[in-house]
């Protein structure tokens, strides 16, 4: 029989015969490895996942027309969006125009209202978003000011800027020439607690028919899943590539996100480090206890003439085998934990880090090896006769 075969048989037989103890050791290593893999994976993925949550605060980048242009066309905006490498979660374009209701000035905003679900999830609407042509969403302040309820009809008048210039006279009916009237039905009242409450929102198509021209947009809001630095880089790129668009970071959102996110990452990092350190020590003490128990066996082997080296080799072999199996099991269980966290907390899947499997196994091997060396060395140092006598 070859030496290596014999060695392997000794190790497996030892594990098989001492099932319950080995199970204890394996369990310890597996738990340690699971926690290592799970926490590291959660820590690694957290900034991205939490970053998505922060998008709820609203747009972190806006496009406004550059100094030399009056408004942005949808093509220009699309070109600018294409320049951003990071994921653009959502975008919405607004076109603001002054109009009047019974000669009282208002601001009408034209946009693709369907997109507001994604860009402004915090909007609370009493009623519905406009879905048919001729419907308008009214900000709460304006609704109170004009006493509007859902279902009411409101006449909005628009005076084209060029018409205003020539209409220096008022015709016999007291009407300014060129003024466009259109009736809108209130489909919903908007409550945000912010400046949006002061506006009227209509669909982009209605806006076009109201002003009688193709829309150019005044503001585009974007929610980009990126940190402040990446955003700044994207903004610089856009300023160079698309002349009509001037990108700006919404500092309130980007700066605050950086602050809060770095705190949260630091929290999870510290928790991970402390947990790992403590669990690894626990794993080591358990392994130590399992090995110490076998002092008698070590003494017997020495008495039979085994060298210290061969005893160490065998114990290490056993320990490393357990470490390997535990590490492998642990890295998958750890992924299970990370997956659980990500589906329960963030409602999204997690990216599996293949590199974590070898890392987990190596750490598990190192901890078990370290935990074996000390007690085995202590046992081999002692006179076998004393150990066998049980002293």
């Amino acid at each position, binding site marked *: 029989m070859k030496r290596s075969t014999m060695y392997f048989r000794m190790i497996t037989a030892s594990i098989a015969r001492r099932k*319950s*103890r080995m199970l*204890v050791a394996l*369990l*310890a290593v597996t*738990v*340690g490895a*699971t*926690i290592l893999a799970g926490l590291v994976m959660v820590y690694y993925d*957290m900034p991205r996942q939490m970053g998505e*949550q*922060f998008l*709820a*605060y*609203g747009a972190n980048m806006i496009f406004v027309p550059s100094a030399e242009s009056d408004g942005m066309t949808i093509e220009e905006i699309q070109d600018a969006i294409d320049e951003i490498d990071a994921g653009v979660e959502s975008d919405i374009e607004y076109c603001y125009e*002054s109009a009047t209701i019974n000669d009282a*000035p*208002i*601001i009408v905003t034209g946009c693709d209202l369907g997109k507001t679900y994604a860009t402004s*999830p*915090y909007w*609370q609407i009493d009623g519905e978003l406009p879905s048919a042509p001729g419907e308008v969403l009214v900000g709460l302040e304006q609704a*109170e*000011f004009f006493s509007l309820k859902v279902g009411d009809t409101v006449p909005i008048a628009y005076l084209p800027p060029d018409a205003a210039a020539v209409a220096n006279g008022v015709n016999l009916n007291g009407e300014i020439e060129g003024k466009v009237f259109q009736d809108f039905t209130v489909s919903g009242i908007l409550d*945000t*607690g*912010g*400046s949006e409450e*002061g506006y009227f929102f209509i669909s982009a198509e209605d806006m076009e028919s109201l002003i009688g021209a193709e829309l150019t947009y005044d503001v585009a809001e974007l929610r980009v899943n990126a940190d402040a630095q990446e955003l700044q880089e994207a903004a610089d790129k856009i300023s160079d590539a698309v002349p009509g668009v001037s990108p700006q970071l*919404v*500092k*309130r*959102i*980007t*700066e*605050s996100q950086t*602050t*809060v996110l770095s*705190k*949260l990452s*630091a*929290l*999870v990092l*510290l*928790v991970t480090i*402390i*947990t790992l350190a*403590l*669990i690894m*020590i*626990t*794993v080591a*003490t*358990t392994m130590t*206890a399992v090995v*110490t*128990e076998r002092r008698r066996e070590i003494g017997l082997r020495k008495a039979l003439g085994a060298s210290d080296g061969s005893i160490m080799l065998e114990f290490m072999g056993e320990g490393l085998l357990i470490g390997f199996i535990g590490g492998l099991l642990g890295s998958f269980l750890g992924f299970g934990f990370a997956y659980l*966290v990500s589906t*329960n907390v963030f409602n999204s899947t997690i990216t599996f880090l293949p590199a974590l499997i070898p890392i987990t196994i190596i750490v598990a091997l190192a901890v078990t090896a370290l935990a074996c060396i000390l007690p085995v060395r202590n046992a081999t140092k002692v006179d076998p006769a004393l150990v066998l006598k*049980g002293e």
Partner: protein
Amino acid sequence: MFLRMIAGVLLRQKGKMFMIAFTIALGASLATAMLAVMFDVGDKVNAELKTYGSNITVVPKEASVVSDLYEVEGASSVPASYLREDELGNVKTIFWAFNIVDFAPFIEAHVNANGQDVTMVGSWYNHHLSLPTGEELDAGVVSMRSWWDVVEGRWLDESVAADAEKVMVGVALADELGVSAGDSLKVSGSELSGSYEIVGVYEAGGDEDGQIYAPLDLVQELSGTEGLISSVEVSALTTPDNDLSRQAAKDPTKLTAAQYETWYCTAYVSSICYQLQEVITDSVAKAKRQVAESEGAILDKTQLLMLLITVLALVGSALGISNLITASVMERSQEIGLLKAIGAHDRAISALLLVEMIIVAIVGGAVGFAVGFGFAQIIGYTVFNSSIALSPMVIPLVVVLVIVVTLAGSIPAIRTVLRLDPAEVLHGR
């Protein structure tokens, strides 16, 4: 005799017992640290989220509509109504006063600066408040506009008397006027005009970049609105909204008495708004949904994340402890065999082992609790720059955890060992 045997084991097997106590201490410290952090993380993150600015604005009834409309027309705006400055102190007297971490009054005036029409805003910067409750607080825009970058010069400092006659200018306006920090700016308001030194230029990334910020009193004098303010921004720690608070936000009078009580005494953003309206005459307190709702979502997620990590750490330390105890009980099969051989009852042996383990667990648990609380403080100071409060829930949880884990680790092992034939065990098989 029983006591002497236990004392004997604990003294003679010092090394082993120390190792068990050490492991239990590690497990207990991990449990303590994680539980303490988990219970406190909500408050801590809530405070961090305040960097997003205020979540409540208090304005006079109808004022904002008028102001918005005037802006459309491009005329100089005179809001129809104001709030009273002397009522500001009431903000810190409401039921949820301790949840209000910051607030600042604002007054807006349309002035002419170096020949250009601009909006000038008066506010607090680091206004020191000594409240009747004994609380000391520095409130104002320095903390409520934490995302502003002062690109030149410095913030206005209210503790410096000379700063009462100085101003800060937005970066866009500074460019337009060609002024920088240290220059003086000629400002003429509706009542008064004068020349004021610019102490700093800020970049806000919004409309404020085209405005002038000055101390509250200065703007009031310039525009002749002494004792009046146009809005108050409030930063409050709030509980995430639920169905009750949404229902209450629409109309609190429609709630039943019990519901009203619950709502009023919970720190929902809507109940804080309601209480603010009660103490400030003719005001409307509005929740900024964008901030309030996002805060709630992020808070929930963080707490859930910490809960799951805590559960993993607890399970890990529980398995670690019970593992070691199992291993160390099994290790003593010879001793137990010997006890059985000389006629000890199973029950006596179990009692002996259990009492030993529990003594070790209590010692280890107590040490672990102290160390774990230390770990929690390290986390608190490193991450949040403040101490972690010890929730009263943590102590019983850790005690129960340690006892259950110790028993769960020792009982199965003791039963296995007792089942062994003493002759065989002593023979060493």
